[in-house]
């Protein structure tokens, strides 16, 4: 600042208009400043009797000086609650500390209304330390109190909102949990609880669910037809969710019923095809891929007849480590086309051999950094590497394999393995 003529002795002298203002301020008497201050002033004797009070405070209270000075105590100006607080806390503390700052109290005005204030008091002592009187300033805290109440209300509202959000989140979690449980129950209703024990035959199965929030579309079943024969099937319906589950249910029970009447797997797929075509129209085709089989005990072998409709080929893992692919190429999707063709295959399982049915979640999984298709060949090599194996060991190894796919496996996957225990030197039925 290098304003000419300006200086600390003449504040604002360089600015027109301010000079007059400063002059007026300097002429303001101490008395005037006291009386008309923007806050209330009062001085009381040690017993609280009001000795001096300014006009501002009198104005707030709606009282005259004559009514107050020498006649009222400070506590008489307070509400009942304030009076109590003053007697029990304010006055004793002031006597001990000599000073109290910004205490919130309510004044009672002449009209009976309540005036929230902030009170600061100082104990004036004589030179030898004897308390003489109490000086008090009173600030109107109406705005501040309203602001505080507003803050409090806002905080309560925020807490309420937080509680509501928390409750909603808890509810959503509970709903989700209930839905997951419902879906799990439904999913289980589409699959056999356990596979039945077939004397002399080993079986194992596994269902991998890609999402607990989504009903899967894979299915399998295995059940005895009579003393010698057992039927089984495994498949994959198109789509996911409730519609897929309804289709799965229809498919499963159609196949079960059809197999009880006719042991020809090709005929069974034909029946399923008719049922699905009848149920779902041309604009909304719904189909499945399925492998259906019937196995019959003949001596110490199992004669297996199966048929496929658009389903990945079944594998036979021989006891000597060879892996055969049961060629059912040309079998068509079931339920999509009136003139669908289904392709049969036969095989004989001898002790130590294992038949594997699977859905394409396994072979369509993506592996490696380039997310390449796992594929049929990799599965054949994997199975060959396990031989000699049995249904249980095979399914366990495949479960490990599926786990290893991580997020490369984004589809449901069903596995069903059937085998005869290997002949061993130590006795029958040890290896599975």
């Amino acid at each position, binding site marked *: 600042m290098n304003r000419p003529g300006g200086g600390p002795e003449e504040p604002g002298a360089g600015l027109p208009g301010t000079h007059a203002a400063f002059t007026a301020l300097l002429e303001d008497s101490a008395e005037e400043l006291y009386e008309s201050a923007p806050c209330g002033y009062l001085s009381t004797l040690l017993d609280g009797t009001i000795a001096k009070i300014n006009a501002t405070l009198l104005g707030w209270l709606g009282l005259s000086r004559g009514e107050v000075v020498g006649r009222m105590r400070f506590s008489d100006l307070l509400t009942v609650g304030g009076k109590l607080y003053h007697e029990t806390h304010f006055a004793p503390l002031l006597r001990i500390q000599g000073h109290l700052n910004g205490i919130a109290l309510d004044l009672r005005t002449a009209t009976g209304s309540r005036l929230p204030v902030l009170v600061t008091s100082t104990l004036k002592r004589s030179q030898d330390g004897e308390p003489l009187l109490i000086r008090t300033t009173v600030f109107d805290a109406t705005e501040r109190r309203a602001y505080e109440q507003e803050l409090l209300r806002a905080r309560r509202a925020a807490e309420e909102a937080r509680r509501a959000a928390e409750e909603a989140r808890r509810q959503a979690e509970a709903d989700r949990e209930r839905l997951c449980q419902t879906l799990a129950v439904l999913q289980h209703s589409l699959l056999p609880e356990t596979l039945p024990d077939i004397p002399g035959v080993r079986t194992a199965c596994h269902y991998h669910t890609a999402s607990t929030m989504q009903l899967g579309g894979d299915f399998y079943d295995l059940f005895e037809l009579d003393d010698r024969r057992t039927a089984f099937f495994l498949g994959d319906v198109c789509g996911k969710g409730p519609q897929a589950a309804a289709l799965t249910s229809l498919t499963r029970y159609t196949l079960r019923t059809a197999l009880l009447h006719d042991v020809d797997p090709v005929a069974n797929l034909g029946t399923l095809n008719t049922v699905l075509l009848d149920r779902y129209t*041309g*604009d909304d*085709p719904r189909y499945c891929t399925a492998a259906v089989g019937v196995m019959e005990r003949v001596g110490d072998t199992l004669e297996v007849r199966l048929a496929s409709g*658009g389903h*990945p080929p079944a594998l036979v893992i021989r006891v000597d480590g060879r892996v055969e692919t049961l060629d059912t190429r040309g079998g*068509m*999707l079931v339920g999509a*086309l009136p003139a669908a063709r289904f392709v049969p295959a036969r095989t004989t399982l001898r002790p130590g051999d294992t038949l594997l049915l699977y859905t394409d979640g396994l072979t369509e999984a993506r592996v490696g950094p380039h997310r390449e298709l796992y594929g049929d060949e990799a599965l054949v090599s994997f199975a060959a590497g396990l031989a000699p194996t049995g249904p249980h060991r095979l399914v366990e190894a495949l479960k490990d394999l599926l786990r290893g796919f991580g997020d490369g496996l984004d589809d449901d996957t069903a596995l069903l393995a059937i085998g005869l225990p290997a002949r061993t030197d130590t006795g029958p039925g040890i290896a599975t």
Partner: protein
Amino acid sequence: MTPLTIKESPTSTGIALEVAGDLDYTSAPQLRQAAHTTVLSSGRRLTMDLGGLEFCDSSGITALIAVRNHAVSAGAEVLLVAVPAHLRRLLDLTGLDQVFDMRESP
């Protein structure tokens, strides 16, 4: 994710649909809708050029079957052109290679 695009154009034998992008659960209804609004008459041919198809899952297969059903019910025939290898594999596996006429180029 590549959005599915379908371009329709007339051909000397009927109508061509050029289908490109991802044909999956979300986009499959789009193809069904496109085929449905296509006016086909008996003896004409619906040519679907799939050269730009980058992905197709079972929902996509369902849509292709629905399109075929629509065409067949109108007495028209369906021809798939430039079928990508991944889709070809799916069609072979599901026996649909016996149902769809397929050609390398139109």
